[in-house]
């Protein structure tokens, strides 16, 4: 919720900067996210979907996604929200319609809903009984994105805090590539 508020505040702030008195249309344009995204896998749901805002210089992206894992791959279906921030670099254009962002580095914060998962240790544990929470996960991603006209596809290699900690604690037994897995996505560019 807090994150939603921050996103809206940022958008409003941009509007104030724009300082165009007449244009409601422009305000709507500003508030409108740049992209709509659908992703498969990548630790934030079997499928996740959401919106993405991109800074005018195209190097920074922020998004919010709802993720879903069906009961077949969970106990009860898992619903989660993910906040995602990315830095995008090495942009190259290939012809008039095609553009590749060769490097997208991102960090995400995922929160799963449900009484089975905790964000804060329940009262029946002593404080510090577990050093982590089950509902919250943080991840890192590294990937590229291809844009053709209004559409785009991307891949990202990702890992999470828990996988990284496991890897660090047992680097000799867990291979480096055990840590990483893939997310694939489709993007529609609204503007």
């Amino acid at each position, binding site marked *: 919720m807090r994150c939603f508020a921050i996103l809206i505040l940022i958008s409003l702030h941009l509007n104030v900067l724009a300082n165009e008195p007449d244009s409601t249309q422009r305000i709507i344009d500003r508030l409108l996210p740049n992209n709509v995204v659908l992703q*498969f*896998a*990548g*630790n*934030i*749901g*079997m499928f996740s979907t959401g919106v993405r805002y991109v800074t005018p210089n195209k190097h920074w992206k922020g998004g919010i996604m709802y*993720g879903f*894992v069906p009961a077949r*791959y*969970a*106990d009860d279906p*898992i619903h*989660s929200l993910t906040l995602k921030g990315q830095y995008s670099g090495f942009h190259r254009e*290939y*012809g008039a319609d*095609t553009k*590749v962002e060769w490097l997208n580095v991102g960090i995400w914060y995922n929160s*799963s809903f449900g009484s*089975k*998962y905790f964000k804060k240790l*329940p*009262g*029946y*544990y002593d404080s510090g009984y*577990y050093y*982590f929470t*089950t509902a919250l*996960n943080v991840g890192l991603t590294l990937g*590229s994105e*291809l844009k053709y006209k209004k559409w785009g596809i991307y*891949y990202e*290699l990702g890992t*999470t805090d*828990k*996988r990284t900690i*496991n890897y660090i*604690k*047992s680097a*000799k*037994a*867990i*291979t480096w*590539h*055990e840590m*990483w*897995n*893939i997310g694939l996505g489709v993007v529609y560019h609204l503007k």
Partner: protein
Amino acid sequence: MYYRIYVLLLFFTAFFFSACKRNFQYSVLEVRPLDREINQKSIAEINQLSPKDTFSFLIMSDSQVAYKPLESFVRHVNKTYAKDSVAFILHAGDFTDYGANFEYNLYYELTEKLNFPVVGCIGNHDMLGNGQEIYRKFFGPENFTFTYGANRFILFNNNGREVGFNGTLPDLSWLNTEILNAREDNLFFISHVPPMSDDFDPALRDDFVDLLAANKSTRLSIHGHTHSFEYGEFFNDGVPYLVVPTLLKKEYVKVTVFGNEILVQQKYF
């Protein structure tokens, strides 16, 4: 012009798909075990053995983050023990740290190479997130028994703190029924939390201890959880309690049964 991009993309796709071991992970909380009912499969293997009056079994515990020691343990056990010198291996719980599917899978892949059947009970960490559901699918029921000759092994979930000490773990009525139905000379109990620990449901402790002491066939109650070796009659009732140290310390325990007698040995690797 475009074909260059396609070739590059193709190359990257091929590279990344081969770079990851399990390409697509849906969530840290996902339930996608690599196998099913591995306890029951091990028990089927144990049932194929021809039981001896004198036999040994090994116990490991709390392997959670101890992947390197687990790897060494597997190698050590396969090298040290001839096929007929050890009947099977028990695990006293905590296969995982976060109760996460990827941890269960790592444990599975490392222990698959063991030359002996492994049977394990659920630990408190294994119940986190969707861990309990993963255990049920991956390992089988949480409360179960198996026999080896004149010996019955009774394994159960006793992680009371994970359910806020609601009086359901351990399930004493199930345990009572199993004890009443057991016709074997020796009973062995395997559960993660030792009754000496604060993490054992305080309201059930006395009844649990009495239940074990009331049966003349009780030989040993085996636990993990506290990570340090302990062995003794902690309730002065003739029932020995054994706490198996964490595998992280590169320790395990060997139990040898001679008829009605047992020998407990602390082992290092």
